[in-house]
């Protein structure tokens, strides 16, 4: 028995859970938190059915730690949470980045700061996803805007995490997590698992020539690998006071994502070719953006839309190109987080329509905003 298939009417969080199963995830550790709890509830039932393991841990710190452990024991692993839990997980995000552990963290975002608005949507955690843990590192963050994408991008998140040996965050929001929609779940999905290194190899953290990603090891197979969050040399041994080793390691951790950005990044565009105004959005607000683009076009305004599917690494080049051609309007459910990235890459003034409080932008208010420009 494997993941659900065929045409179905599912909740976003459940589609995400099924996507994990489809991607080969066989270990889930989590802690209840609105609005992500359904992912855990669904997998509590499903994991044993597919030969996997489910455990509800004592907190989110333990949950993300357990999935890192599970991955080193050879199982693909995931956890799911929302803002307050995501904050608690940050310590281990850095650990997973430093130890190059492939894991997937789902954040079904709600209104913050603090406990904020548990039942209402927001996208206020997106910069935390990128910069939440201390020190320099890179991660990959994806943003689904439909139930279908809750499935598809969960699979993608696993594949990217395995390919680049990096934590991948699925940055959903309460709307996408709780919405129910029609989905088409394929019989088979393409999956990728980090290749294992040769037994007897001593340099567990040295990538092959031409690659920035070393091969993976699994405990219990005689590798004798030492994995540490301390700055380590290519054997995995702590070397905490050597500036050369630290620089080389941390640069590689960043470069393996940033230099592969072109291969990682996915965006969706509508009518940008001749657009004079481009709405830049991601997650649930992108649905309003698309409706607004259609209405603006009907009214004779050359509007287009850029949807960020990959939030990080950020599609800087494409944003810069569009900024040279059109006015950019950023829509997001926070007071300006991805806006900073858009401005940084556009290198010009960008228009901004934020929305917080737990309500989605309506197409009408987007249209009104654009017409006033």
């Amino acid at each position, binding site marked *: 028995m494997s993941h659900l298939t065929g045409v179905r009417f599912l909740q976003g969080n459940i589609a995400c859970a099924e996507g994990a199963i489809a991607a080969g995830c066989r*270990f889930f550790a989590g802690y209840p938190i609105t609005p992500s709890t359904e992912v855990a509830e669904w997998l509590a039932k499903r994991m044993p059915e597919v030969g996997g393991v489910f455990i509800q841990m004592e907190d989110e710190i333990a949950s993300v*730690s*357990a999935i890192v*452990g599970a991955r080193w*024991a050879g199982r693909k692993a995931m956890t799911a949470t929302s803002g307050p839990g995501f904050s608690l997980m940050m310590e*281990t995000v850095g650990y997973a980045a430093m130890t190059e552990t492939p894991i997937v963290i789902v954040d079904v975002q709600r209104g913050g700061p603090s406990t904020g608005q548990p039942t209402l949507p927001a996208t206020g955690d997106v910069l935390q996803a990128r910069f939440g843990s201390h020190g320099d590192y890179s991660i990959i963050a994806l943003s689904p805007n439909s139930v279908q994408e809750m499935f598809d991008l969960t699979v993608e998140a696993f594949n990217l995490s395995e390919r680049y040996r990096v934590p991948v965050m699925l940055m959903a929001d309460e709307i996408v997590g709780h919405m129910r929609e029609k989905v088409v779940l394929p019989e088979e999905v393409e999956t990728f698992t980090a290749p294992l290194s040769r037994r007897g190899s001593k340099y567990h953290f040295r990538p092959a020539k031409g690659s920035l990603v070393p091969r993976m090891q699994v405990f*219990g197979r005689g590798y*004798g690998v030492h994995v*540490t969050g301390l700055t380590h040399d290519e054997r995995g041994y702590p070397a905490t006071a050597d500036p050369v080793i630290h620089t080389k390691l941390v640069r590689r951790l960043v470069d393996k994502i940033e230099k592969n950005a072109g291969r990682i990044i996915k965006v969706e565009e509508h009518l940008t070719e001749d657009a004079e105004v481009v709405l830049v959005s991601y997650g649930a607000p992108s649905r309003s953006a698309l409706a607004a683009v259609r209405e603006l076009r009907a009214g004779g305004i050359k509007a287009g839309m850029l949807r960020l599917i990959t939030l990080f690494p950020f599609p800087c080049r494409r944003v810069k190109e569009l900024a040279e051609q059109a006015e950019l309007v950023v829509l997001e459910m926070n007071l300006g987080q991805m806006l900073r990235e858009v401005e940084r890459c556009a290198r010009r003034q960008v228009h901004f329509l934020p929305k917080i409080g737990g309500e989605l932008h309506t197409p009408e208010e987007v249209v009104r905003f654009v017409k006033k420009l």
Partner: protein
Amino acid sequence: MSEEHPSLSFLRAERMPHILCEGCGNGIVVNAMLEAMVELELDMEKVVFVSGIGCSSRIPGYLKFDSLHTTHGRPIAFATGIKLANPELEVIVITGDGDMASIGGNHFLHAARRNMDMLVICSNNYNYGMTGGQVSPTTPVGWKTTTSPYGNPEPPMDIARVASAAGANYVARWSTASPLQIKQAVKKALQKEGFRLVEVLTQCPTVFGRRNRLRTAVEMLRWYRENTVALHHAEELERQGVDLSAKVVVGEFADRNNPGLVRRLGLVKEERKPEKREERAEKRAEEDERLREARRRILEAIERLSTPRVRRMIELGMDVEKIEEELLK
């Protein structure tokens, strides 16, 4: 004649010298643990060490095993993931009083409550040694550290009793003054399932002892010897009304046979039973006998089918491989 240290074959020699101080008790912990593992003839490829942050947590980095050196306080949570993901692995957590009882207190409690299958060796040196000797949850009342310069005002946590109350299958506490007992406890613990804790009171003369008039390892070990009371004696003494509040009780605090979480989840079927040394020896002897028998039959078959030359070789007592080699020449 120089004899090789018995633990040497398990150490990553290329990583020496280690970072632990002169007189540190962690070496005693490592030796006792490794001896127990060797005596049990564990499959060393299946052993995984997990540790947090602190002096004792640096131990796995010097051992030739798969090991995960994790974040402060979390090794038990990481270990939970490892064991559940692959129950075949023998997961041993090496942690300290600060790592486990303070920042990792919640994970410790819940792993004990779950009876989560792992052996935890907690090297309790009564202070944060790595950062220079700060007060920890196990520092006794009145003792001085850099952050309790007037004497510790807080009552300490009794790690072993907490673990036992929380539901651990096996709990023992010994000090580095009795390494044999540490070894026996580790051996016993390794043959059980569920959550097992061996707490070891470890001397830290460098940043703890010297602030408390115990300047050397010897003085600290003597202090342990004089101030620990075995559990069964303690019970008797307490009945007689002797005040033991200034003493440390050592011994076995729990020895249960409840199912571990791995078995409760159906991830393994059979109950883990300690295999006796004699049983293992018997098994090995049987295996050897089978091999000898097989070899004898092969030789017989060769003899039956072979030429006078081969027969001569057999008469000369040559082995099967040797004969094959000769014939292929």
